[in-house]
């Protein structure tokens, strides 16, 4: 079959990423030709600033070298500017600097022309020594100028201008920044942060001319710029002027082709131009739903969608991106997102410590976070951005909102919250042992741009996720100024575009009872899912339709399939249930006998008041369970683990309530309960709280007049103190409230969301309304949980009923 001809105009980051995505899914569909006006292969434009500052070389910022084009059989015409596209004959015409011309036919065309710097239309703009700041040639010209001249003026105090000024200063020039507004980066920062930034840059030697209106550029006798004159008549001398007042989508060619152009080339959700379905536009030149994006992540999302359509899959749609600005100018951390200026109808929470170089402003409207502006410490930027994007009520968080998520006790990275100050050998990700140096190296060498890519390549923040903020900081510090966010709805996994909520809703609304029905109904892209979506779907099915949807053991991770915990050497650990942590001589004797009989190498007391037998061979599991004769502890599951208790009023001289009995009752009522994630409870008999109820999913504390109930605490990755939920008088009420709260979580939580995350998403007030204020609903929730657990099998002793595949325990032996 003859291949179709695909031509791309433009050889920049968004365009080439589109080709990479296309080659991944349809490597042989097209003959590809690329025209690039610059005589270079695709490079990382964001990293021009480090090149200017002398921190990186041009070679280091190349993303796809010449051989990449060769290896993928792409014809690259570098140095050729496309001058005309004939849409009737489907021909592209181009010219190079020497005047040579080329014409190429296309079946489909990608416009990836990027944007142009905006030059102020003032006298003298064409003089020698007047530059824009956009490409390698501009950067090289600035580097050359810095070697010969002394005085530089940068017009524009936005991100790009300040980066140019910083680079020129590092190359030994005296730099003055001219800015029309009252403070720097007024589109990203409020006045306070903008002025803090200015002060800090001034201390490094940068000069500023604020609220200055440039009138003209003056020439010397040789035709080179010598000074900048302002409207008020003053002048400053300049041997180099860099204009950095903004960029405009480069649409001249598109206009000449008579494509529909507003600010950018207008495209639909499949990135095709609205004028000509054979022609796509991606990147900064494209305008989607009225927005022309300038940040990397949205452009890459567009590339993915365009590639999907070009590959004739036709299942991807681009629906726009929400963006934040999180950027780094010469070692200063800045973050802003949303409506950070505030105003009518908004409230502001402000923390300002200019001496320490810290500033934080949060803007709230109608109990929601609508904007944030951070200066000096940006580690919580991603958290604020998430709150902003999710639009969830923040009243229950309000007292700690200002102090950020990192204040709430993340562990695993030694309390570090400033990536910039960490040495290269410092560990960022404590789960996977990834250092800052390793992350930087991978970002540079593999050309990574997004958090997901860094996770895939380095595993940093891929396990517990507590260092996500740090990794994002490193990412933006390493790839430069731009950072941008994920789309609003995060898909469950790469098998689908649907998010967790959509899957839950579809299962309930359409009474889907098997994974096959879910895959078909929701048009899964893979035939049988993946290890991310299958366990989630299985949980949603059995929690939504108990007794009707059948558990699918092959969709469960190994621990829940074998009902034991796999260890690093492939053996398993076994934890029998000890109701509320109580045991007997008889049970201990049986455990001891089993340890001897099966030569179990290690025995350990767990944090949940039970006993762990470690190093059990898989083929011995059934024998161990049977010989011990105690119920399954579900220590392996996304399910009720333990109810930890103190001895309480039965023994303790301070005890006010019988916490052990309460714990036994709770555990007996709730065991065998699967949930979105593991669930841990505790009951203390008095406010001394020896059972540590304050960091449990449900924590109960006995007081003289009854029981206090706390919810959504966490003692793991994110140490989170549980919220006070309610106070009740009787043990029956404790059971009902705890059960109803957990059933709400079971019905609405997303898979792998702990109660702390669930409550962070929906808000504590919501849970109070559903469980405490609505009595009928509480009773209904509690009744549904009891009905779901009624007759549920113990997987250790009723394997068949629990759908345990017993064949897994028996290896096949070949003689």
């Amino acid at each position, binding site marked *: 079959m003859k291949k179709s001809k695909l031509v791309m105009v433009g050889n920049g980051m968004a365009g080439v990423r589109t080709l990479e995505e296309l080659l991944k899914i349809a490597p042989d569909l097209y003959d590809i030709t690329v025209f690039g006006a610059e005589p270079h292969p695709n490079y990382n434009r964001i990293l021009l600033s480090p090149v200017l500052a002398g921190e990186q070389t041009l070679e280091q910022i190349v993303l796809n070298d010449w051989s990449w084009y060769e290896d993928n059989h792409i014809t690259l015409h570098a140095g050729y500017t496309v001058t005309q596209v004939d849409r009737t004959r489907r021909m592209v015409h181009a010219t190079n600097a020497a005047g040579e011309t080329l014409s190429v036919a296309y079946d489909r065309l990608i416009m990836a022309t990027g944007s142009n710097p905006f030059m102020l239309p003032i006298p003298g703009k064409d003089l020698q020594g007047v530059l824009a700041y956009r490409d390698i040639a501009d950067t090289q010209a600035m580097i050359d100028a810095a070697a010969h001249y002394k005085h530089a003026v940068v017009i524009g105090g936005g991100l790009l201008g300040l980066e140019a000024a910083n680079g020129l200063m590092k190359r030994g020039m005296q730099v003055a920044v001219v800015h029309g507004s009252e403070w720097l980066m007024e589109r990203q920062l409020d006045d306070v942060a903008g002025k803090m930034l200015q002060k800090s840059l001034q201390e490094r030697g940068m000069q500023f001319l604020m609220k200055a209106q440039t009138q003209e550029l003056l020439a010397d006798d040789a035709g080179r710029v010598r000074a900048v004159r302002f409207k008020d008549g003053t002048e400053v001398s300049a041997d180099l002027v860099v204009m950095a007042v903004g960029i405009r989508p480069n649409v001249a060619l598109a206009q000449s082709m008579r494509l529909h152009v507003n600010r950018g080339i207008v495209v639909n959700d499949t990135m095709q131009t609205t004028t000509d379905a054979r022609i796509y536009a991606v990147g900064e030149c494209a305008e989607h739903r009225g927005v022309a994006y300038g940040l990397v992540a949205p452009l890459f999302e567009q590339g993915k969608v365009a590639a999907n359509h070009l590959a004739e899959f036709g299942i991807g749609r681009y629906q726009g991106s929400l963006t934040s600005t999180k950027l780094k100018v010469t070692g200063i951390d800045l973050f802003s997102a949303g409506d950070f200026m505030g105003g009518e109808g908004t409230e502001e929470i402000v923390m300002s410590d200019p001496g320490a170089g810290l500033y934080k402003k949060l803007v709230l409207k109608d109990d929601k976070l609508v904007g944030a502006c951070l200066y000096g410490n940006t580690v919580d930027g991603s958290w604020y951005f998430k709150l902003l994007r999710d639009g969830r009520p923040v009243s229950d968080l309000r007292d700690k909102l200002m102090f950020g998520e990192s204040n709430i006790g993340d562990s695993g990275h030694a309390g570090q919250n400033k990536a910039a100050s960490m040495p290269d050998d410092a560990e960022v990700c404590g789960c996977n042992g990834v250092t800052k140096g390793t992350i930087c190296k991978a970002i540079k060498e593999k050309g990574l741009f997004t958090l997901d890519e860094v996770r895939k390549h380095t595993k940093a923040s891929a396990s517990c996720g507590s260092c996500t903020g740090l990794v994002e900081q490193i990412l933006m510090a390493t790839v430069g100024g731009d950072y941008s966010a994920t789309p609003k709805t995060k898909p469950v996994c790469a098998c689908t575009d649907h998010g967790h909520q959509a899957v839950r809703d579809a299962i309930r609304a359409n009474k889907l009872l098997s994974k096959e029905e879910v895959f078909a109904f929701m048009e899964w892209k893979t*035939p049988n899912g993946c290890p991310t979506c299958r366990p989630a779907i299985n949980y949603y099915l059995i929690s939504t339709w108990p007794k009707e949807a059948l558990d699918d053991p*092959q*969709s469960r991770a*190994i621990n829940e399939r*074998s009902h034991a915990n796999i260890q*690093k050497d492939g053996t398993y650990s076994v934890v029998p249930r000890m109701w509320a942590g109580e045991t007997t001589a008889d049970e201990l004797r049986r455990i001891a006998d089993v340890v001897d009989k099966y030569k179990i*190498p290690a025995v350990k007391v767990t944090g949940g008041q039970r006993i762990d037998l470690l190093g059990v061979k898989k083929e011995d599991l059934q024998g161990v369970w049977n010989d011990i004769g105690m119920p399954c502890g579900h220590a392996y599951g996304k399910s009720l683990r333990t109810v930890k208790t103190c001895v309480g009023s039965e023994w303790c001289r301070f005890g006010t309530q019988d916490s052990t009995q309460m714990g036994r009752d709770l555990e007996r009522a709730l065991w065998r309960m699967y949930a979105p994630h593991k669930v841990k409870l505790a009951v203390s008999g008095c406010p001394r709280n020896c059972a540590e109820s304050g960091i449990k999913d449900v924590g109960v504390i006995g007081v003289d007049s009854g029981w206090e109930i706390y919810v959504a605490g966490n003692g793991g990755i994110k140490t989170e103190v549980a919220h006070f939920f309610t106070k009740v008088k009787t043990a029956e009420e404790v059971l009902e409230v705890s059960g109803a709260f957990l059933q709400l979580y079971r019905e609405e939580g997303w898979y792998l969301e702990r109660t702390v995350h669930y409550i962070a998403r929906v808000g504590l007030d919501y849970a109070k309304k559903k469980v405490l204020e609505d009595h009928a609903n509480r009773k209904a929730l509690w009744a549904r949980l009891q009905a779901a657990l009624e007759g549920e099998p113990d997987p250790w002793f009723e394997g068949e009923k629990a759908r345990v595949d017993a064949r897994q325990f028996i290896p*096949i032996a*070949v003689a």
Partner: protein
Amino acid sequence: MTQWKYICKLEDIPVLGARRVTRAQGLEVAVFRTATDEVFALLDRCPHKGGPLSQGIVFGKSVACPLHNWTIGLCDGQAQAPDEGCTPSFQVKLEGGSVYLDADELAHRALTETRPLAGPALRAAVA
């Protein structure tokens, strides 16, 4: 001429699952069955940290290692990029609903690999 060794019936392997095959020498061989009843065999050891692949979740023509979720291709034992590594694969014959492995490969292929140590054995090895 390949000597085919009978292992089990196709039905003895769960759909989207695996069985372990023990042999006279060397680590076990994992025999996988896909949703479309294709059967593949790999050394039961992830190239990353030695996890038993037979215990992983099978999807498409891949298995996810139960220890750290590396994705290993069932056809060739290759780790999915960006991870790097490969586990030895074994030839399989599926005939008349029966699964066979190559007797020569079972006896001689990939005999030196071991499982990682844990617990007291690890303590002893470190000391």
